[in-house]
């Protein structure tokens, strides 16, 4: 029995070793650990343990550290086992194959079985993998003799400085490559890294990645250094390294399908678009082969008294050079003239997508015509005069 326990503890302590970020010094430490784990299970009250081989003394703090690491690993292993059993049960309940039951399936199943209307998303019932639930701790950073594994341990932020070190090495290798290219007089197109569609991880995310509590100055310096790396003409060669610290902002399937033009009974092409701005909704039908007529709620442009609103209605037509070539019929509901104009503008722009080519569509997007303006009036908060304004501060 003791040998079985001893074996288990040995295995768990090797887990502690193997989960380190840097290559563990296995050969030197293992025999000691084997001895200590088997002896620690029997007598924990003793102040310090001496190895039977007469090796280094292990202090109480080291022992406690060792025990904590083992306990944590055991705890995590138990939790993961429970999670796996739960996952399989859930798959059976839902009638799915337990082998291919992913986390998304679990989320969907929990949402179905335990529907919740709570506004606080983190308060809703959920079943996540234990490694997502429990705070990740760093594995043992030093061995039983107290010697740290990582060279940068004494900086206090070994993973962070390791990343900076790698960055420096990458820069040097890119410079060497550039020199070689220049020496061989090879003229390449700019192979700079394309930042589109991704952004830097936040400070919190970086801290989580490194499992180190970074300061603002650490984060700023890191981002500035990475920006310098990106500016290198051959930075696309270091794409893998850079993408470790960038998150993809836009999903790959971003290009939505543009609806095809529809035709009336007379054969006139038309398209409808709907747009919203604040609490106003507008539906616009754009008829091709027109003469520039504009109709808003049965009236003409005089629906808008202010010139700015009229300009807004006309903006997408003028931008796409279709001003006198299409007819516009708009229906707008809701209060607010300026927001009506904005809603009509968006609806028109969305309808005009079907009339124009890819290039013009991209230009419209860059001009902000195809983006919904989701700004609304911010609510008033209790204890304040308005959304942001506070009551008069009285010293006494």
């Amino acid at each position, binding site marked *: 029995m003791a040998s079985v326990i001893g074996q288990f503890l040995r295995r768990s302590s090797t887990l502690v070793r193997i989960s380190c970020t840097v290559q563990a010094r296995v050969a030197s430490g293992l025999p000691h650990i084997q001895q200590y784990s088997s002896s620690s299970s029997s007598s924990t009250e003793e102040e310090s343990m001496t190895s039977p081989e007469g090796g280094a003394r292990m202090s109480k703090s080291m022992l406690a550290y060792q025990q904590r690491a083992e306990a944590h690993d055991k705890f995590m292993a138990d939790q993961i086992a429970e999670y796996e059993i739960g996952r399989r049960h859930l798959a059976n309940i839902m009638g799915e194959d337990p082998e291919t039951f992913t986390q998304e399936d679990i*989320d969907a199943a929990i949402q179905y079985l335990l529907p919740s209307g709570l506004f606080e*998303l983190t308060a809703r019932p959920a079943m996540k993998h234990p490694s997502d639930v429990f705070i990740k701790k760093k594995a043992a950073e030093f061995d039983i003799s107290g010697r740290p594994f990582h060279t940068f341990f004494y900086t206090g932020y070994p993973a962070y400085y390791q990343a900076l070190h790698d960055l420096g090495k990458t820069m040097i290798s890119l410079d060497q490559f550039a020199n070689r290219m220049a020496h061989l007089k090879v003229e390449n197109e700019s192979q*700079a*890294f*394309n*930042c*589109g*569609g991704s*952004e*830097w991880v936040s400070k919190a995310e970086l801290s989580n990645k490194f499992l180190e509590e970074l300061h603002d100055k650490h984060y*700023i310096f890191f*981002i500035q250094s990475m*920006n310098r790396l*990106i*500016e290198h003409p051959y930075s696309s060669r270091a794409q893998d390294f850079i993408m470790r610290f960038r998150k993809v*902002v*836009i*999903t790959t399937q*971003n290009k939505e399908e543009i609806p095809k033009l529809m035709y009336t009974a007379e054969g006139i092409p038309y398209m409808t678009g709907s747009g919203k701005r604040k609490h106003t909704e507008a539906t616009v039908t754009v008829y091709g082969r027109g003469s520039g007529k504009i109709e808003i709620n049965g009236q003409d442009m005089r629906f808008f008294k*202010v*010139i*700015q*609103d009229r*300009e*807004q209605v*006309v*903006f997408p037509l*003028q*931008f796409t050079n279709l001003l006198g070539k299409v007819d516009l019929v708009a229906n707008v509901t809701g209060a607010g003239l*300026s927001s009506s*104009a*904005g809603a009509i*503008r*968006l609806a028109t722009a969305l309808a005009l997508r079907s009339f124009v080519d890819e290039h013009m569509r*991209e*230009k419209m*997007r*860059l*001009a*902000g*015509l*195809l*983006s*919904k*303006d*989701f*700004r609304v009036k911010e609510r008033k908060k209790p204890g304040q005069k308005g959304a942001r304004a506070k009551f008069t501060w009285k010293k006494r």
Partner: protein
Amino acid sequence: MATGVRVLFNDFRVPLRSWLTVNSAWGQVTGRARYSQYPPAYIKPVYLPAKLEELERSGDAKQLEYTPVRAAYNTHTSSVFHDPLVRKFTNHIMKTGNKCLARELVEKAFQEVKRVQLQKRNTAETEEEKEAIVCDPLKIFKQAVENGRPVLQLVPIKRGGVKYQVPVPITDHRSYFISMRWLKEAGREKERTIHFPEKLARELLAAARNEGRVVKKKQDLHRQCEANRAYAHYRWS
């Protein structure tokens, strides 16, 4: 959570520090704004046709293929009658959100400028004189703003219990702002019988000729800066 939908109100309620401009290699377009309702990744829209063409020519438009764009303001148009400087000036003149009135005042001022210039041109004798007179109010406005822009500003810096007025270089943005502010103030000065648009028109014409209150204010400021140049090093110590 871990879905593709962004929970929009989470990101920006925390005030973002202005020194942290995390840029793309493309430049300041993706710099973080203070207190913006849009998430940081959203770039400002480029609605002027000339600017768009420049983007495409330089190849930067390709980089922005997958970057989300903010919605255009309701003061943005690609019309030839639109000018960004006039837009800024109108906003500056506007009081308590009365954009209609602000726009009317600016347009009336421009009309007045044109009227005065046309009168001058019609009364001019030689062809050369006629051609020399600029009738475009937009050109006169831009010239007036340029002539009113200071190069330095005075900043109160406390040293040893005394507040000194130290001359300090001014940013472009601020210099435009100060010039426009002086024009507005000049338009609001004492004469009660003459309304704002006419006064403003007068000031614009004067400033375009390098005369008038606005240019005088700029020259006074420069003189003061010159007088206080002994304190210039207080900027650093």
